[in-house]
């Protein structure tokens, strides 16, 4: 089965990881009228050409690898299946039955040039409301985000970023 993500050439400017973040996420959603939840870990690695997202269980083993380019989103699951859609949202809907805000997550977590002040709510990013409730000390970038939507079905995506490449750990 063809591997999802091309082997990255670290010397190629297009393949250099320009931004990465590693964290934990939780999803609350409604399925058949019942409140459901899911939790896991996420590794986000972005180059100029594409974004690779590895989703893992809380115990750390990978269960899905997404490879997102401007034209398509593909996912390889741990049992070897490969799915391709136009957008990450369509892909996650196909797999999970609900969307996750991956297309806008990069802008939601902000950067040193453009970042949300704490506890402000950014409304209406394609139906998602974003609230930053915890920040890295310096630079003062988002660490915990609560991303919610009401339609088509209520859903809350909570992301706690343990490490992000644009907010290096203070050296002891």
């Amino acid at each position: 089965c063809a591997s999802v993500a091309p082997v990255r050439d670290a010397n190629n400017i297009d393949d250099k990881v320009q931004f990465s973040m590693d964290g934990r996420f939780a999803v609350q959603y409604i399925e058949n009228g019942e409140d459901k939840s899911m939790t896991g870990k996420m590794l986000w690695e972005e180059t100029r050409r594409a974004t690779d997202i590895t989703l893992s269980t809380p115990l750390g083993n990978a269960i899905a690898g997404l490879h997102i380019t401007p034209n398509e989103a593909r996912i390889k699951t741990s049992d070897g299946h490969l799915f391709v859609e136009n957008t990450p949202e369509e892909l996650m809907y196909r797999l999970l039955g609900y969307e996750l805000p991956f297309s806008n997550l990069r802008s939601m977590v902000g950067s040193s040039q453009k970042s949300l002040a704490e506890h402000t709510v950014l409304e209406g990013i394609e139906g998602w409301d974003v609230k930053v409730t915890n920040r890295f000390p310096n630079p003062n970038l988002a660490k915990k985000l609560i991303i919610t939507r009401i339609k088509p079905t209520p859903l809350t995506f909570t992301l706690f970023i343990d490490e992000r490449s644009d907010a290096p750990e203070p050296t002891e």
Partner: protein
Amino acid sequence: TPIDDLQQFNSTTSSASGSFTQKVIGKSGSAKKVSSGTFIFARPGKFRWTYTAPYEQVLVSDGKTLSIFDKDLNQVTKRSLGSAIGSSPAAILFGGKDLSANFTLSDGGSADGRAWVTAVPKSKSGNFTKVNIGMRNGLPDAMELYDTLGQVTVLNFSGISKNSGAPASTFNFVAPAGAIQGK
């Protein structure tokens, strides 16, 4: 042989506790932060796996349901254990007694003072291509979990205490006040 040691451990250990460190090596080879914590289990399928650093998270199985609480996310997630334990590492340490039901075991040679067993899941639908278990003094001392997406999880165990018994309440999950609950 290490396989005999592992099978012996499995068949003579009804419960055990200890500490672990865990490192996940991504498919690009980059190693992420080491996490650590404690574990306690009672066969079949009951365990409490607690991460204490760099964050607080607990996974509790009562043999039927797996409950996960993450302090930073402040959320409780529950799922049936069957789909979670399957041919996962938890099955090796905490599952039923006969490993060869779920895994093909082979001698993995010796390295870093351990005798290794290679366990390949018989089911192809699991998350792992293989699991290496390092044995020392008849106890599992390390594990390397190769998942199907190229990540490797390296676990090291210490302070293992066998058959020390655990109060039944150990495996009952009680959600902290204010935690968001989900099914």
